[in-house]
């Protein structure tokens, strides 16, 4: 089905961004998307944990704290599979550049911190195509923590890893949890050959680098809309 046989026929390109909360990756992928769509490329943007059907169950599970590390992992893989089967894969087949704000590596990092077996998590997501480029927004843990903890006073229960019982104080728990995720990412960077971006630099500088790298890795003109240009929509 959606496994390897199809991969040769996939003409699109998959670009993922990964990084800690507070690394600024969502801003960067947003700017990337704006650039590509305004310049007339076939581009699609997808976000972690956003499948309409599955999200309802995820929200309930989180709100009522019904989730264990394993069901947390499985429900996110369900969400991912839904977006993958219904959007990411067909759009790649149709020759789109698909931008993913967090991809399977987020699950690799978070779920292993929660105690799931690393091998099992990788097998769970083995159906997913590896990105053509994965930008990793590298930022010192301290900076990422400061950006989140200074910005808003409340961090969500699961974001803070409160389910792990590190600390009763959400901020303290968040610090510990993010620290563990940070060290997972440091392994993933090498394992999956991420393209590192220094996320301490000003946003426009980062974006210039991201665009430059993308142009070297992807033959962009191939992904332009053919025929009449559609009117641009601001979303």
């Amino acid at each position: 089905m959606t496994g390897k046989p199809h991969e040769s026929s996939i003409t699109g390109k998959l670009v993922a961004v990964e990084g800690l909360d507070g690394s600024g990756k969502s801003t960067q992928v947003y700017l990337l998307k704006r650039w590509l769509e305004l310049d007339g490329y076939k581009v699609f943007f997808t976000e972690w944990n956003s499948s309409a059907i599955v999200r309802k169950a995820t929200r309930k599970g989180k709100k009522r704290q019904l989730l264990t590390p394993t069901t947390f992992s499985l429900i996110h893989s369900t969400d991912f599979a839904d977006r993958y089967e219904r959007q990411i894969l067909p759009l790649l087949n149709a020759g789109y550049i698909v931008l993913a704000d967090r991809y399977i590596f987020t699950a690799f990092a978070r779920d292993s911190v929660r105690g799931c077996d690393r091998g099992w998590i990788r097998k769970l997501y083995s159906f997913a195509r590896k990105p053509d480029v994965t930008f990793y927004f590298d930022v010192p843990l301290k900076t990422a923590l400061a950006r989140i903890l200074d910005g808003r006073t409340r961090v969500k229960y699961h974001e803070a890893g409160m389910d792990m019982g590190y600390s009763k104080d959400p901020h303290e728990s968040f610090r510990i949890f993010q620290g563990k995720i940070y060290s997972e990412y440091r392994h993933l960077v090498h394992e999956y050959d991420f393209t590192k971006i220094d996320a301490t630099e000003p946003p426009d500088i980062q974006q210039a680098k991201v665009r430059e790298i993308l142009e070297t890795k992807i033959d962009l003109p191939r992904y332009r809309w053919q025929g009449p240009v559609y009117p641009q929509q601001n979303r």
Partner: protein
Amino acid sequence: MLKPKRFYGKGIPGVVLDQLKGQLIVVEGADGSGRSTQIDLLRNWLERRGYPTVNVGLRRSMLVSRELEQAMQGNILGTRTLSLFYATDFTDQLENRMIPALRSGFVVLADRYIYTLMARAIVRGVEPAWIRDVYSIALVPDAVFYLAVSPKILVERNLRKHAVLDYWESGMDMRRSSNMYASFIEYQRQIQKEFQAMQQHYGFETINGNRSPRAVQKELRANIEVILNGKSGLIEDRSNDSNSTQRIARSTRTLADRGEGYQSRVSGQPAARYRATHRFP
């Protein structure tokens, strides 16, 4: 000796297997195979004898059952997504119902388990290795009984009961045939083929479900009797085949007995009738 529990793979993090004192008994089979009837009868039988039981089944989790139901009705999810949704439902029940019950020494009666979910996924084109890996978190049951019923009899029983065939149990989503009757027969054949293939890997007991409920129940009880005496034979049978004739299930016991009931009781009577034949790899 108490047979140690194990997971198929790495399992669920944080579960201490030695604490799982109860027994996990799985009944598998298509709709119309008599599964529910048999489980009800088993439950009565067990509870009459003082064994606390817990029933679990597919799509009964607190976490996602309702959402899964809705998604099924709309038939909007892809095969892999649906497989993972079911895996979530299964795992929620495994962690929050089955494992706690086993810890308390209950008999868990599972109305279907991972095998149906795997068979359904595989006939729809999911790679067998992948779905096996997904379910490597599952606990290896103490016994799995597969009620094999010929597709023709299944049709009869379903129509007699509901006057209509279930969309999913007829494999209508696979669009093999617009004729529901033909699709049902074909789909059930494929599922049975998968069960046969899985039998080698997972080694469950196939029970001829074409017979009367009474005959099926009698066979189930005979098999379960052995397990309840802490002699499922899963591990011991293999290493200790020569001793198997010494094993006999005690036919009556009380709740108070059960603390030491897992210690092997040996009697001189031959126990061919009770010898467990199911084995796991």
